[in-house]
């Protein structure tokens, strides 16, 4: 069975091409059914994310490739020629390796991003629900998800934040642990601070207070996080009740003074205060960092956290690549061995029959012998047969990936040993 993957991703195609092949999750089943309907396709799956679109098919021959390219052009609503230059075509073990890497996040735009694992799982489920998978593709996808899980468990790839807003959330977790029940004060409405607040909001913080020079803008933002707008001149009152303060006001001076934070900390007693200053010039007095219980990070600090996390990710990605390489090898061996099993069994049966009949003939000529002598001869002939079969079986198990080459090897061995 031939295994082929045809697709494009963020490295081979610009966004205007990728978006043409972006299929919403609800319509993947329909797409995969039509892909499976192509003449000669035995099994099919279709992976569509904002950064990639890939059709994976298993077939008796490789003739289906042209049809799949046509199908992709049809899906994209474009000329085949204009799509073809962005496509890559992978075969056999390269398909398996590619899927293992994709699901593990190694082929993503941001190495190790965790969403892709879920997207591959969804593509697998959609194909299975559409009854588009054959045993080979079923096996490939199941193993892909296992490998992705193994990579994430063993390397913790993707555990550390690599963007400034996520770095803020990661640090908040290092201080407070569970973020539920915390209160956040957002000062100003910079893009980065909004993103950070958005991420914190997704972590189910208890309340988001928004203060802005324009109260209407504060109300607008607060509504987005189901929060509360507060007047800018009353932020000092909220410092004591909030656990995380994100400042990004665009003001040319310190909006949060060290004395105000000192008073807030005294009121908070043992509870910490995490302050994130994303503005340039800075809005939070840097002296705040010297106060016990206050943790102050500015945009450079967060960027440096994100950068060092990225280095860690690249290190872990190297470990992950080794795992993928080993897993591909094991999977390839397993599939080739499974393919060779019927021939091996036939071969063993044929030679055992020969051995048994020749032994009987020989023993008739020799005449009566003791049970010990018979056992010794049985052992000798069995070992000889095993020795003779050793290399042919090894060759069958280590056959090449390409089905045509494997078939040719099988036919040769069958001819040599006179199998039907």
């Amino acid at each position, binding site marked *: 069975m031939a295994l082929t993957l045809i697709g494009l991703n963020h490295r081979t195609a610009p966004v205007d091409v990728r978006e043409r092949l972006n299929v919403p999750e609800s319509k993947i089943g329909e797409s995969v059914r039509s892909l499976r309907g192509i003449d000669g396709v035995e099994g099919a799956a279709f992976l569509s994310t904002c950064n990639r679109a890939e059709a994976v098919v298993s077939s008796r021959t490789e003739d289906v490739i042209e049809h799949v390219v046509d199908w992709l052009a049809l899906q994209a609503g474009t000329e085949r020629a204009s799509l073809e230059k962005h496509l890559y075509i992978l075969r056999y073990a390269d398909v398996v390796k590619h899927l293992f890497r994709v699901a593990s996040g190694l082929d993503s735009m941001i190495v190790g991003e965790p969403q892709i694992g879920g997207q591959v799982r969804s593509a697998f489920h959609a194909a299975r629900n559409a009854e588009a998978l054959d045993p080979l593709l079923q096996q490939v996808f199941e193993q892909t998800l296992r490998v992705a899980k193994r990579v994430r*468990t063993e390397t913790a790839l993707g555990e550390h934040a690599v963007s400034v807003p996520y770095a803020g959330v990661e640090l908040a*977790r290092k201080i407070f642990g569970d973020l539920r029940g915390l209160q956040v004060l957002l000062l100003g409405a910079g893009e980065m601070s909004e993103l950070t607040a958005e991420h914190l909001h997704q972590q189910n913080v208890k309340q988001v207070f928004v203060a802005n020079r324009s109260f209407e803008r504060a109300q607008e933002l607060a509504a987005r996080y189901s929060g509360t707008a507060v007047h800018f001149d009353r932020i000092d009152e909220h410092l004591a009740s909030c656990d995380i303060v994100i400042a990004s006001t665009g003001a040319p001076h310190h909006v949060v003074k060290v004395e105000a934070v000192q008073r807030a900390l005294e009121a908070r007693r*043992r509870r910490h205060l995490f302050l994130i200053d994303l503005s340039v010039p800075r809005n939070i007095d840097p002296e705040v*960092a010297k106060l016990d219980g206050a*943790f102050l990070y500015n945009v450079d600090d967060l960027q440096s956290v994100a950068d060092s996390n990225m280095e860690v990710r690249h290190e872990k990605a190297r470990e992950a690549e080794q795992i993928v390489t080993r897993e591909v090898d094991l999977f390839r061996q397993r599939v080739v061995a499974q393919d060779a099993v019927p021939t091996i069994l036939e071969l063993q049966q044929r030679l055992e029959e020969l051995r048994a009949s020749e032994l009987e003939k020989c023993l008739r000529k020799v005449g009566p012998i003791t049970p010990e002598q018979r056992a010794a001869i049985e052992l000798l002939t069995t070992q000889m047969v095993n020795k003779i079969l050793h290399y042919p079986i090894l060759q069958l198990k280590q056959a090449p990936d390409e089905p045509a080459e494997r078939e040719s090897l099988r036919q040769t061995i069958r001819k040599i040993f006179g199998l039907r």
Partner: protein
Amino acid sequence: MMFDAADTLYLALALYALGTLIALGSLFTTDRRPQHAALIVMIGGFAVHTFWIGVICTRTGHPPLTNLPELAAFLSWTIFAVELGLYLRYRVYAAAFFVYPLVLLLLTVPAVLGEPFTHMDPSLRSGLFTAHILFATLGIAGLLIGLAFTTLAFMQDRALRSKKRGALWQWIPSLDVCRSLSYRLLATGFSVYTLGLIAGAMWSYRTTAGIIALHMKEMSAVIAWVLFAALLQTFISGAFRGKRTLYISGAAFVAIIVAILGIAHA
């Protein structure tokens, strides 16, 4: 050579040593599996340790509380039991980096000093004495693990303040979790330890006709009590930050170890 059930002490010691080595080795990897392996080996050691304590109780007819080797073994057992309970409840592993070596070191005491199968001095056959030892041991176990979390909280605070990751960064739980566990363990350990000291003072008062001796062991125990009280006070007053807390913790640890080592052979 006949197998003696008492020799299981060395098996427990070997398993603890292996578990400790694996746990410390896991500091150099991001993989969590060595930590799970270390925990399983330590639980194996704990099971053997429990069997060995059972053997002592059967042979001597009393709990292993009469001399330094027995107490060190019992304290080691109690510390691991508390640590295991905490792990099962909170799934926080980082304290193991301190607790496992301590468990190993304490169990080394009976292995080095010889078999602790002594029969109990009649003066020690008292409910007050048993209460004194049991409460003091449980209290010390809580206090020592509390100190491990205090150290972790200090390390986390320093790392967050300096914006540099330390060796344990990825394994240390959040600052709030470290502080909260540290406080709970110290407060509970301190209360139980205080009960142990009171029971000990009462037993001493009764057996020595009103005279309470203050030798090195008793002095260290009282000093440790004062230092732990000071440590708890820093929590309650909100001053639990900075090097002062760490110095008090270090001094309290030394005092408690001196008190344990000061226990005379029966």
